[in-house]
């Protein structure tokens, strides 16, 4: 019984003399959404295609639950390619049923699963329409259904949110979250860092073919938190400017954003602030994913 622990170790890939992936190692854990971010040409799609067996790596291993990944394992993977594609002239339901059957489901099972999933994705009115007659956003939903219909234990989604309006992003996000809640391991790439930040549990940041950072989102944010703090107090916070070891970044009345040269300094600032008046909030300021991203890819 597989549980879906996907592990890449030292994966490399070159096209001619150009090395596009260099020693890529990271894991994707069941029940968690792993965000895969990186600039254009960073190697995200190449990595995903290697995991799916669509491309051979030059070195390194891809394992599922500690065993070398086989094509039989990959039948239980779901995949949404970067460049979308379904048969343009096939009807939505028929197409998803067909894909489910290719993954080994019987026709009645495939039909009921496809219908339920397409309904969840908001396409219940369009089941009998051809793919080419759908709007781009709806084609995208059908594409996600294609990746999910066979209840995959590992889901690899290349830019699942691109081209979706905010409402559709929410629909897709909730479908992915419920899939993760049922135990699927999900790896998805995205350029929309705010969506990744909101959705993912784990994060892998790729740049120039190498992993720049990976781990749980919260750990990464804490790691890159540095020593920036936010203080909201009742009185004027102007006194901070003369505190030793403190660099004020932003300041307005009782609000101040500052860098401290250490945890001690921060604690001292808090004590001083409490002495000077009521403190509404004092907290280390976690950087946004966009900030971390910029920082690590440099």
């Amino acid at each position: 019984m597989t549980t879906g622990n996907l592990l890449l170790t030292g994966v490399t890939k070159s096209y001619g003399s150009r090395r596009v992936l260099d020693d890529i190692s990271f894991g994707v854990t069941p029940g968690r959404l792993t965000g895969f971010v990186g600039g254009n040409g960073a190697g995200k799609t190449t990595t995903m295609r290697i995991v799916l067996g669509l491309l051979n790596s030059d070195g390194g291993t891809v394992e599922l639950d500690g065993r070398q990944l086989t094509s039989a394992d990959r039948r239980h993977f779901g995949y949404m390619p970067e460049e979308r594609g379904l048969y343009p002239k096939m009807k939505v339901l028929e197409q998803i049923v067909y894909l489910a059957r290719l993954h080994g489901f019987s026709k009645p099972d495939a039909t009921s699963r496809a219908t339920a999933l397409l309904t969840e994705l908001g396409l219940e009115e369009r089941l009998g329409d051809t793919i080419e007659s759908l709007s781009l956003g709806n084609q995208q939903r059908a594409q996600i259904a294609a990746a999910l219909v066979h209840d995959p234990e590992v889901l690899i989604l290349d830019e699942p949110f691109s081209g979706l309006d905010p409402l559709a992003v929410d629909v897709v996000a909730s479908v992915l979250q419920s899939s993760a809640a049922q135990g699927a391991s999900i790896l998805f790439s995205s350029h929309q860092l705010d969506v990744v930040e909101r959705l993912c549990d784990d994060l892998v940041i790729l740049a120039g073919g190498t992993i720049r950072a990976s781990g749980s989102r919260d750990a990464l944010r804490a790691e890159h938190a540095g020593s920036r703090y936010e203080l909201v107090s009742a009185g004027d916070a102007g006194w901070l400017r003369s505190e030793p070891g403190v660099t004020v970044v932003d300041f307005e009345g009782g609000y101040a954003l500052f860098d401290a040269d250490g945890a001690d300094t921060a604690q001292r600032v808090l004590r001083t602030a409490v002495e000077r008046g009521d403190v509404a909030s004092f907290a280390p300021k976690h950087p946004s994913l966009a900030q971390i991203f910029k920082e690590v890819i440099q």
Partner: protein
Amino acid sequence: MSTPTKTGSPSQAPLIWLVAEREIGSKLRSKAFLISTGVLLLIALAGIVIGGFASKNTGSDAMPVAVTSQTASAVSALPNVKATEVADQAAAEELVRSEKVDAAVLPGDNPAGYTVIALKDAPSSLVSALSQAPDVQILEPATTNPLLRYFIAIAFGIVFMGAAATFGGTIAQSVVEEKQTRVVEILLSAIPARTLLAGKVIGNTILAMGQILALAAIATVGLIVTGQNAVLSTLGAPIIWFAVFFLFGFILLAAMFAAAASMVSRQEDIGSTTTPITMLIMAPYVLVIVFNDNPLVLTIMSYVPFSAPVGMPMRLFVGEAQWWEPLLSLVILLASCVAAIVIGAKIYENSLLRMGTRVKLGEALRG
């Protein structure tokens, strides 16, 4: 995450069939395909019916013939003749001249007892019907009627080229469509490339064979209905052989078309790799029309895998082939078929995921 309906590594047969089913379904839903098939069958039927009338010379309508009271009984007993009784020779000649009748049969003092009057040409069917032919025994029967032979050559050539080009083109387009829309990436994450290829080849072969069998059925029924049983008895076996040869010939071509198409990424580029194969399927058509009376060319054609489906039935029809020849040719065809599938599958597997510019043949073979 697994459910009881999922199987670990299922046998490929149901998957191949699933792919084949989709190929057939999507083609049968195309109005253009249904209409063109309908037109093709109608043309075939029309050809046979017209050919039937032409071969009977007189057509099936009764020939109007003027008779006098003395000849009326003899003529009205003949089949396909509509006798019109007139008073005398002058009245009969008048009817012939005004073309109200095709001929007139009058009493004559020759041994036969009749004189036949016609406007320009002797009405041969009438004359032979009236004469009592002696028994004829032919020691060395002449070869087949050259005109019939020519039409049969065209028919085999055109049916082979038409069906092979139509369904070869279909499989090529279907391969490129999957590549161009990238649905192939999803398909290959579910099933092996060879399974996909096998399904496509089988699906299109079934479609092509369906069309061939429909044509054969129409031809048979048409020949029977128009009373051309003699043609049918000589054409029956060649038609069956044609169907058998076409089956394997098409599998060979389909594997080649699929492999060639997998090397390009856009519909616009299909021609750049499939043109040589299209030439291959046009060659038998051209050759059989030009050389249908040249035994050497026909013999060569009947053994070359690409032209055997046309060449061998043609030789069987004219009675030049020995009984073992179609079997030997079939063995050669089967061997080429296996080779094409092995090489084609390799090219297909290696090219399917390469997008962008055309994959070079050497790279496709090496992988």
